[in-house]
Each structure stands twice: as structure tokens, then as C-alpha cells.
């Protein structure tokens, strides 16, 4: 059985996590959570995975503030952020569409993004919906900026952007995304048409590899059971 769309995303994230020492998974993030558990299995346990909302995979004991303190201490290598809008300079908007404060559409809020985007070395932007309403030319509200001027303390920032159509990499110096791969069944043209900002595109864009059989077996076996503790509905659909 070939990989499902979800499995391709899990496999792609698991590859990105290779070599990292610690990753924290925020709430409502079953795909990154599953990918982190896959990466940990592949690394023989050497990747520390913390899944907020999980009892089994949470080692926080100092309250919710520990997430941010730990990141500030340099003890979190990778974090995932999303956004109702994301623009070509990797600015993200988790607040709302329209003119702030009386926005047309209000989203929950910035959560920890305005901090974690600065202090976590590798932030992976993950948003499955790849449409022009998400990937805009310029966000209506900057919850967290993609880059900062020289002199601003910023050991961290955006690293990759994974969507339902493809994988892009962010270049801090050039303040621009570049397409790295297109998921099976999709095209560069489809990505261009569904992205409201310009990005770099190599002459030949590879296809995002499907997870290899060992990874697929992990996803469909032990990982599905493990992630079910936190995301039972998601696990059942895997």
C-alpha cells in the first residue's frame, strides 16, 4: 500500500528532524507529533520529544512557562508554527484577517509565536492548506516577523515551510523562500498558482520522497499506537 498524503507529510517532517536533539510539539499538532515519534524511533531514542497535551510524552514539571524558559535556555532545537496567514518574508499572522483590532476574521491569537520564532534555532512552518488566502503577499498582522534587523537578539527563526503541496526552505539573508520539493501528485505550477508571494524555484524541482517501508511500518504500527494517547481520532484515521 502506497503512502497516504498524511504519511508523506509525516515522512517529510521526520527527515527534517534527523540529527536534532530535542523537539517540542505544540497543541493540535498530530502530524508533527507523529513525525517526531518516527524520528525518535529512527534515532534510537536520541531525539527528545515533548508533546504538549500528552501525559506520556511531556516531561514538563514547572508549569506552562517551562516551554518558553526551556527554549530560551537553548534546550529546544525544533518547534513548529503555523498561521492563518504566512507571507513571503516568513512573517506569520495568528491574530486575524482584516484591519486590526476590528478584524474581519479573528483567529485565536499569537500564542508563543512572537517569542519561540526568535529563540528556537529551527522553526518549521507547517500549514496543510496551501491556498492564496493563507500564503499572502503581506500578512495583515505580524504575530511574529520572519527576519529581524542586525543587532536584534535572534538565535532562531524560520527554517522550512511544509504545506500540503510541497516543501520550501527559507533563506534568512535573502528573506525569501525557495521551493525544495513538490509532493507526489502535485506540480510546481499548482504551487505557484496557490501562493500569493514570490519564491525562488530551481529549474528542476524534485518530488518529495515517499516514506520508505521502514518508516511506513513505524507509522502504521507503534507510532499510531503512541500518538493515539494524545490524538485518538487522528490515530484511528491513520
Amino acid at each position, binding site marked *: 500500500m502506497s503512502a497516504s498524503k498524511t504519511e508523506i507529510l509525516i515522512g517529510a517532517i521526520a527527515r527534517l528532524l534527523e540529527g536534532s536533539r530535542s523537539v517540542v510539539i505544540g497543541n493540535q499538532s498530530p502530524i508533527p507529533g507523529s513525525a517526531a515519534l518516527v524520528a525518535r524511533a529512527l534515532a534510537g531514542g536520541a531525539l527528545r520529544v515533548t508533546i504538549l497535551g500528552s501525559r506520556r510524552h511531556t516531561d514538563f514539571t514547572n508549569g506552562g512557562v517551562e516551554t518558553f524558559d526551556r527554549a530560551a535556555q537553548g534546550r529546544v532545537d525544533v518547534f513548529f508554527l503555523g498561521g492563518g496567514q504566512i507571507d513571503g518574508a516568513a512573517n506569520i499572522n495568528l491574530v486575524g484577517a482584516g484591519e486590526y483590532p476590528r478584524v474581519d476574521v*479573528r483567529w485565536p491569537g499569537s500564542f508563543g509565536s*512572537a517569542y519561540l520564532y526568535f529563540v528556537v534555532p529551527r522553526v518549521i512552518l507547517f500549514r496543510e492548506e496551501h491556498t492564496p488566502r493563507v500564503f499572502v503577499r503581506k500578512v495583515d498582522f505580524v504575530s511574529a516577523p520572519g527576519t529581524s534587523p542586525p543587532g536584534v537578539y535572534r538565535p532562531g527563526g524560520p527554517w522550512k515551510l511544509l504545506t500540503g503541496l510541497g516543501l520550501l526552505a527559507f533563506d534568512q539573508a535573502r528573506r525569501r523562500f525557495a521551493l525544495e520539493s513538490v509532493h507526489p501528485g502535485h506540480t510546481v505550477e499548482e504551487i505557484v498558482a496557490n501562493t500569493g508571494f514570490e519564491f525562488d524555484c530551481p529549474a528542476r524541482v524534485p518530488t518529495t520522497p515517499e516514506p520508505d517501508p521502514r518508516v511506513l511500518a513505524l507509522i502504521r504500527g507503534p507510532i499510531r499506537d503512541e500518538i493515539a494517547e494524545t490524538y485518538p481520532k487522528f490515530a484511528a484515521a491513520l
Partner: protein
Amino acid sequence: MDSFCDLAALAAAIPDGATVAVPSAPFGVAMAATRELVRRPARGLRLVCVPTSSIQADALIGAGCVAAIETSAVSIGEYGTGPRFAAAAREGSVRILDATCPAIHAAIQAGMKGLPFIPLRGLLGSDLVAHRPDWKVIDNPFAPGDPVVVLPALRPDVALFHAPRADRHGNVFIGRSRDLVNMAQAARATAVTVEEVVDDDLLQDPERAGAVIPALYVERIALAPRGAWPLGLPGRYAPDDAALGRYAQAARTREGFASWLAAWLAAAPAAERT
């Protein structure tokens, strides 16, 4: 101890216009007490969500109890943005101070420590800063040319939360939910609902005393079994996802929210339902 009272008296001790600190959904939200605030009804509350809120803030906003809210998010978990919060944003009917989680934590810790302000990394270039005249950017006194955001300390009038248990001296066991310790110390008064009241002195057990808020910080305690429902309490019960889903659906419209509210106020205490 005279800190013990019923839910209505606990809610009555939170005056209209008070600045009220409340915890995030997973850490012990005093929903049964919130219902008594709505029943009163409380007016003009200034919520400080530490650092986010869920159905608590949303229902208080919908019921007209809230003048202002400082929060990093209002989200009914997987059901998305709090509908009454979103409506209030569109209508401009509640003052919203958008923040980011570590900023609220840091400001509460500054209040707890009596610091006049606290610096925090990150934030620079976020529109949050542009819309928070109470936040400032200064030069790091130890490294000129290094800009840093400084936040004023938060000292809420009341911290309101739900915890697993209290003893008869008024000490409160909070387990891993350490943010509650910071909130109780930063606030001028603390009101707590608990699942149970036990006879032994929680401070005398060296295994558990480290996870106890001493009675000194706790002005009001009311018994409220399953008092976080429909939210959960770590180690005790999970959130009631079906009930949260029904809320999120109903609260999309003003009328739907009104029906939900009437049913909530009319319902027997959660304890009798279970």
C-alpha cells in the same frame, strides 16, 4: 478556617471591575465558579489569561461580564477560535490586549517578585508591540545597541482557578500546574475551587509539600467536584470534547450562545451529573 465558602460566595468575593487572572485550559480552570460569576452577573471584569483561555473567557465575554481581556489566545481546542471572543473583536465591544504566552508569564512572575518591570527577548518587530502602549523597548543596559522589550509587572486583583484538593488549613495542592503558584503570589487575593477537602495537613508531607500553595495566599476556597467541567483537570479527568464541541457550535451566533447559556445556568452542578 474562614476561607471556606460556597461557590456563590466565592464568586461574590470577585468584585465587578476586578482584574482576574485565570489559567489555560489544561491547568485547572474554575468553570463552576465561572458559572456563578455569570449568574450574578459580574460586570466589567478585566481578564488576564495566563497565558491563554478557552470556554471560560469565551463564555464570560458572551455573557457580557468582560470589559477587557489580555490574552495570547482564546481557543476552544480543536474547535478553533472562541466564537464570542471573535465576535467581540469584530464588534470592538471588548478591549483586547493581544499578547504572547511568555510575555504574560514573565509579567506575572514580575508581579510575584515585586519587580517593577521585566525584560523579555523576542517580540521586536511583532505588531503586538506596536499595539501595546504599555510595553516599551529600551536599550539593554549591559549592551548598548541591543534593543529589548520591557513589560510592566502584572498584579491582578484576584487569581481564580480550580485545583485537585485543599486541606482544612486552606493549603492547596496543585501538582505540576506551577503557573498557579505564580498567579497566586502575583495576585492580591486568590480564589480556588477544589475537587475535595482532605483532613491531613498538606504541608507536613515532604513528598507533596513542594506542590502546595500555602494558605497564606488563598483567601477563598469552595468545594466543586468536577469543577473544571467541561474542561479537564490533569490526572483527574479529561476534557469533555463533546460538550466543548456543542459549545463551539452553539456560540457561533448570539442566539445559539443565549440558549447554551440558559441551559448552563439551569443545569445542576456538574458533580450531580456524573
